């Protein structure tokens, strides 16, 4: 158990190192940091002085080590576009993205798991068939098209819900929350549905196929033979085992979730980190791009570790090994 975790930790560190190296290369070589920061009409001497103060004249290895040190201290450089420290820029956008992603994931799990179980237990039911045929359409429908259609129906035609922004926010000091106002919650509805849909399809399909697998196994047949109540067999014995891969996949899908959050935030002009990133691509704001890459790499490694630990809680067999 500890051995497995330490191997995973080592792998995680290697991934982080690789990502940091790429971010460093972007900071250092994409565009000219001196040209981006120096005032207009500066002399060569002034440029050289700036180059020296930024430490760009030192050997590369030394520069990389200094870069890692700065990243560890939370210094991610200055945005070309906003002239603000990138770290504080990212932090100010984090609440918007987190609120969106959490609501969407909860929605996807709350709807996807029951639907998947239903499709496995009663494949002939009308709702099951409907869900099954909708999933292929769901996979083929790009996120931005889903968002666009929702805006068209609920914002343009029916005028029920806002199509962009976060509505009124409540400032909790460290966190700008949209959960506490009516307009904040209304603004959350369309983007979170858009983001939830793709996860929902995936979770539903997975739960269904895992459930079908588990239901045909010996211990379930034995449980039926013992005459245990159906709700106990389905809910406690079968679903618990069928949910194992769901935890893994939900965790591993974090990359996809980030990608779809970028698209969703852009469609709904949701002022989160994803929108910051797409705007940085167009500008192009290299420090923001590199910092975002670092953030995603870190998040990915973190989630992977959490999934590993969660696994040992759900599956007692892993604890003894």
């Amino acid at each position, binding site marked *: 158990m500890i051995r497995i975790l330490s191997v995973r930790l080592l792998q995680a560190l290697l*991934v982080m190192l*690789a*990502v940091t190296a790429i971010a460093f290369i*972007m900071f250092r070589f*994409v*565009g000219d940091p001196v040209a981006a920061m120096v005032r207009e009409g500066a002399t060569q001497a002034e440029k050289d002085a700036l180059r020296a103060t930024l430490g760009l004249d030192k050997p590369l290895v030394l520069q990389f080590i200094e870069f890692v040190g700065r990243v560890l201290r939370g210094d991610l450089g200055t945005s070309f576009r906003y002239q603000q420290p990138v770290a504080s820029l990212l932090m100010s956008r984090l609440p918007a993205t987190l609120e969106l992603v959490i609501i969407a994931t909860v929605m996807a799990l709350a709807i996807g798991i029951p639907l998947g179980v239903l499709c496995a237990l009663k494949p002939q039911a009308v709702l099951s068939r409907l869900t099954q045929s909708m999933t*292929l*359409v769901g*996979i*083929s*429908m*790009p*996120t*931005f*098209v889903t968002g*666009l*259609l929702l*805006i*068209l129906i609920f914002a*343009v035609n029916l005028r029920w819900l806002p*199509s962009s922004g976060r509505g009124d926010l409540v400032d909790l000091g460290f966190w700008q929350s949209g959960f506490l106002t009516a307009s904040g919650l209304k603004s959350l509805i369309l983007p979170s549905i858009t983001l939830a849909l793709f996860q929902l399809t995936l979770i539903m399909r997975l739960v269904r196929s895992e459930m079908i697998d588990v239901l045909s196994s010996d211990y379930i047949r034995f449980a039926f033979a013992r005459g245990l109540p159906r709700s106990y067999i389905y809910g406690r014995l079968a679903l618990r085992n069928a949910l194992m891969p769901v935890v893994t996949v939900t965790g591993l899908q974090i*990359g*996809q979730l*980030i*990608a779809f959050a*970028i*698209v969703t935030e*852009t469609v709904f002009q949701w002022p989160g980190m994803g929108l910051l*990133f*797409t705007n*940085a*691509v*167009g*500008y*192009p*704001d*290299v420090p923001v*791009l590199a910092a975002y*890459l670092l953030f*995603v*790499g870190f998040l*990915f490694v973190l989630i992977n570790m959490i999934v590993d630990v969660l696994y040992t809680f759900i599956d007692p067999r892993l604890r003894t090994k």
Partner: protein
Amino acid sequence: MAWQSLLHRLPPVSVMIAGLILAIVVVLVIFAPMIAPMDPRDVSSYSLMDMEIPPAFMEGGDSRFLLGTDNQGRDLVSVILFGLRISILIGLGAVLFAAAVGVVLGLISGFFGGVVDSIVMRFADVLVSFPTILVALLISGIARAQLSADTVLLWAPVILIFAIAVNEWVQYARTVRASTMVEVARDYVRAAKVIGLPSGRIMMRHILPNVMSSVMVISTINLAGAILTEATLSFLGAGMPPTYPSLGTLIRIGNQFLFSGLWWIAVMPAAVLVILVLAVNVIGDYLRDRFNPKLMAR
């Protein structure tokens, strides 16, 4: 009875419909300049008089413009046909590029094993942990920072193909590597090695034909993904420019008119995109189940 067994072997109706749709798309795309009622790039062929006409089946529609016109008076059928062309070309380009890189690296990893194998596969592991759209957006951003605006415009399709393929080759490499490792242990490969054939020749002439079927299946499934990624990038403004619009660019343009009630400018290209991707997905699923049940859905 002969006809019954023939009927049994025919693919399901959904697959045949998807095939028909794809066949129509291929014809439309190849002959687009002849089929399209007008050339969207030729300013003299359209006029502002015709702007913002709804589709022909709606009130106020015009029979000359089946799907309506955009804000500049361009016929949407023509604009979509040319956009479809660009979307498909970039999708195919990305799939071919990814397949070429992935197959070669997969063959080499599987054939030689050892250090080469570990390096390629660990690199692939790190790469796939980042979603294609994120990597493609990063590459697009880097290209914008490094190159002049004119160069970016001119090379947009190449940058897109590269940006999409950077992540997609991994799947080919993994599959080809696994199959190659099986083939390498077989007698015919051992015999080829014994008679002293060069490694490159064994890989290309002897092993490659035996792993091609899975490459074809992955390519079909990846084509749908590549077209979607291209559309998403163009929609986000990091893909094809409005001067050479793909379906994604058209939807991006149409998005600006959503609130003016001109829904068809965005919805028509979006519908074409969804139908195209759905058709490719249906066929890809069918091919996967039929030729290679062990290949997992992504």
